[in-house]
């Protein structure tokens, strides 16, 4: 199977603290891989390394078999899109937020396109001219997802994008991501604390603990982990 992102002995250290320790593994092209693990395991740091917001302290990352440092940073970030957990909104309307990826490239987003993206994340036309900062956390998360889709990246990094959503919205977003994955063969890497989500949506799973990749493989591994620490973590999440 073709790889989209390869990690080879990747470590990341900040202020003498090792956040990621010798990570080696592959995210496969066109597949959904979920990242699970306790808070502070280094999952968000790993996503930021894929998008070039951070660079590894040691080891090598390749995107589509090309070393990540060979990419021009802005080109890399358009190709590897990321929805941040905080779902930050810029000051302005929902439309201005949606148009941001295009504005940064000196291009325009039409109203029709903006409405279409809004519909994709389950929001109606009326949201378009509302002030983004006044929306609820869940609505902002939806706008953040829609905004990430606008660059039509071949790889999407999703950092706990459904954590602030109600069950119906979670279902809608899961359907949307699955649809994008199937229709455009977009590679998805999705951090989630929701084991049901990891099992039902993800083709593969990486379990991270204390900066290490402790177990990886088919998502079904979450039903029968071989590592005792992983088994304990999963028991804890289920409880």
């Amino acid at each position, binding site marked *: 199977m073709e790889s989209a992102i390869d990690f080879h002995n990747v470590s990341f250290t900040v202020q003498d603290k090792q956040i990621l320790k010798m990570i080696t593994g592959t995210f496969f092209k066109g597949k959904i891989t979920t990242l699970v693990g306790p808070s502070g395991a280094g999952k968000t740091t790993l996503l930021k390394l894929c998008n070039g917001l951070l660079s590894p302290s040691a080891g090598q990352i390749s995107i589509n078999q090309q070393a990540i440092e060979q990419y021009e940073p*802005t080109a890399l970030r358009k190709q590897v899109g990321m929805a941040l957990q905080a779902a930050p909104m810029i000051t302005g309307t929902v439309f201005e937020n949606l148009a941001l*990826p295009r504005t940064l490239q000196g291009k325009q987003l039409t109203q029709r396109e903006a409405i279409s993206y809004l519909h994709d994340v389950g929001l109606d036309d009326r949201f378009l001219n509302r002030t983004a900062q006044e929306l609820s956390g869940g609505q902002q998360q939806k706008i953040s997802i829609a905004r990430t889709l606008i660059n039509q990246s071949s790889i999407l990094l999703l950092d706990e994008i459904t954590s602030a959503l109600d069950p119906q919205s979670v279902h809608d977003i899961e359907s949307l991501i699955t649809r994008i994955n199937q229709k455009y063969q977009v590679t998805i890497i999705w951090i989630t604390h929701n084991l049901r989500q990891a099992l039902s949506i993800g083709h593969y799973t990486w379990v991270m603990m204390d900066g290490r990749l402790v177990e990886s493989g088919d998502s079904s591994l979450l039903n029968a982990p071989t590592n005792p620490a992983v088994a304990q973590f999963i028991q804890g999440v289920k409880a």
Partner: protein
Amino acid sequence: MTYTSLALTLIFVMIPLILSKTLKLELEKDTLIATLRSIIQLLAVGYILNFVFDAQSYLYIILMVALMISVATLNARKKGKGIQGITWKIAVTLCTVEIVTQGVLLGFHIIPATAQYIIPISGMLIGNAMVLSILFLNRFTAEITSHQHEIELILSLGGTPKQAIHRQLIHAIKASMIPTIESQKTIGLVQLPGMMSGQIIGGADPIQAVQFQLLIIFALLTTATLSSIMIGFLSYPSLFNERMQILQFKEL
């Protein structure tokens, strides 16, 4: 003013000392230090200016201006500790402000090219540029700290460092310039500016004093704009590395 009259002005130092002691404000030591420093510094400057004015040498004028820029730079850089190379960035800004303003004033013969004019006007403009730099750096560092997620968002969407920091930069530039513009709106109505008051007390024609004050006010507008914009555009690239990643601000 006689020395007796000057000595009598110490009454204005005694009043805060007595009040501080009575109300246990514990400001007596600071008040005394401030008073002593003012006397020593101003007397020293008085004698130095006397010497420079008598000498009428461009070398002494340049040395005096260089000293002003150095002291202002050292004072302002404390507020931008997190920004790499902030000392030379402030120094370059203050030098540019001085060259541009004096270039116009001397180039168009608005003021005579003598120490009596160049040094006091330079002092006012460099002092104002220093305050502006401090205001800008204060606001800029606060904006970056409170908008880390927004900066990261723009970078993550493929924006350049300049695009990522644009809003924070503009907010900080505007915020640092507002006091200068606002104070000029009420000038003469609320308070008489120091230089103008000094000239009037010294016996100068009030209209002549107003003309010089207007000169300073207009020059201050350029000073404010130039210093904020220059420090801003010189500073922001240091916040990113060559991979267009924002550096941890406190680590710088």
